């Protein structure tokens, strides 16, 4: 059967990874290429690169990184950050991305999902959502999770699927950074409404959090950044642990 996926996310600014501590066997932890190789060898099922480059001029640094990673690492690569137009899709797909993640770009222009899905295929379009509880309801937040759009998140997920998104990243602002587990309540609400794969993000602090996520059956993949970058969780050990606990894993 299909394995559950473990996905590290790398934030890249001006061609460098933003956070990370020393890893055995890597000289330069802020080199996206070295870190990507390390994660690949550890058994990461996919890599997400998030472009947080502030200026437009430095975008080429990001695509250079992407090209190098794609020429040396042969697992699926997802790219997000600054994706607002079909030209942005084109730019990163040509450099080796397999999937493109849209977040604020889809809020500004909801038609973007459908247009991209039509041009590049559903499998290529990932809708990434930053979600927070507001008065007992789930709202979509924009601009890196700072602005409440007032959009109902559960409906937004359904609309995204109908428009042609092939996958959803559900990032819970409420659990993000707390390291006390994924937002199972939110994930269950989303999972019950869509048929496309759901990637859980926000809240992973220990191996048990991933086990709880997959046992609950509310996500197809678990995504995290800092717990991997700061070596709090080793991906290889995590996958072996999950497999030993009867979660289907590629190990």
């Amino acid at each position, binding site marked *: 059967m299909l394995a559950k996926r473990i996905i590290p996310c790398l934030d890249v600014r001006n061609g460098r990874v933003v956070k990370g501590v020393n890893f055995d066997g890597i000289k330069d932890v802020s080199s996206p290429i070295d870190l990507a190789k390390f994660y690949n060898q550890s058994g990461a099922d996919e890599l997400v690169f998030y472009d947080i480059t502030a200026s437009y001029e430095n975008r080429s640094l990001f695509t250079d990184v992407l090209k190098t990673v*794609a020429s040396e690492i*042969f697992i699926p690569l997802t790219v997000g950050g600054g994706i607002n137009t079909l030209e942005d899709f084109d730019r990163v797909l040509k450099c080796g991305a397999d999937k493109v993640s849209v977040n604020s770009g889809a809020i500004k222009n909801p038609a973007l999902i459908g247009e991209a899905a039509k041009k590049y295929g559903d*499998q290529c379009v990932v809708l990434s959502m930053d979600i927070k509880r507001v008065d007992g309801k789930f709202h979509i937040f924009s601009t890196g999770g700072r602005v409440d759009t007032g959009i109902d998140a559960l409906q937004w997920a359904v609309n995204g699927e109908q428009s042609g998104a092939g996958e959803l990243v559900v990032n819970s602002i409420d659990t993000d950074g707390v390291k006390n587990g994924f937002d199972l309540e939110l994930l269950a609400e989303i999972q019950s409404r869509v048929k496309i794969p759901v990637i859980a993000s926000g809240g992973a602090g220990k191996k048990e959090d991933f086990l709880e996520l997959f046992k609950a059956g509310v996500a197809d993949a678990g995504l995290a950044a800092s717990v991997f970058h700061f070596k709090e969780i080793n991906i290889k050990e995590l996958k072996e642990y999950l497999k030993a606990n009867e979660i289907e894993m590629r190990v």
Partner: protein
Amino acid sequence: MIAIVDYGCGNLYSLQCSLNFLNLETVVTNDPEIIKSADKIILPGVGAFGDAVKLLNNSGLAEVVKKEAAKGKYILGICLGMQLLFEKSFEYGEHTGLGLIKGEVCPLSDDIKSDIKIPHMGWNSLCINDITDPIFKYTKNGDYVYYVHSFYAKNCDEALLAYSDYEVTVPGLVKNKNVYGAQFHPEKSGDVGLNLLKAFAELEDN
């Protein structure tokens, strides 16, 4: 030299990178003469069957690939390129394929009855029927490969080298003599995928 047939369907960057990584000489081409002079041919593809087969036919490349296959040249179809090798497809209508492998391509949604997800996307393990086939020189039963597809090959038991289980039997690798097809993406399947590409490149003429 391996010719990657470029008929306008999909992004060939990763595929070419993976072959270059293996130090294999490749050329991405739509030139019939180059395809004819190549040692082996890879037929890639992402997108819709109907559009792809039209592009292949209109460019004359379908005939070129069929002729080279008949001469005994090794061919590997990947993903949609694999599906194109079959006799026909029922992806949005009915389309005639290259007919190099017996079988047909049907929607997964016709046969999957539970609520498991379509597309079949992610890493699934390979159950190998015939481990003695040289394409598996570096591959083990149970190795994981990366799939992304909503349609799958059916009625192709004779050609079935390896499959994955996704409520239905999903043909992963198929073969008719010198013609191979992989439903998964070897260029995105990590070391397992690279090993399959390496074994394909090393296939020798009988």
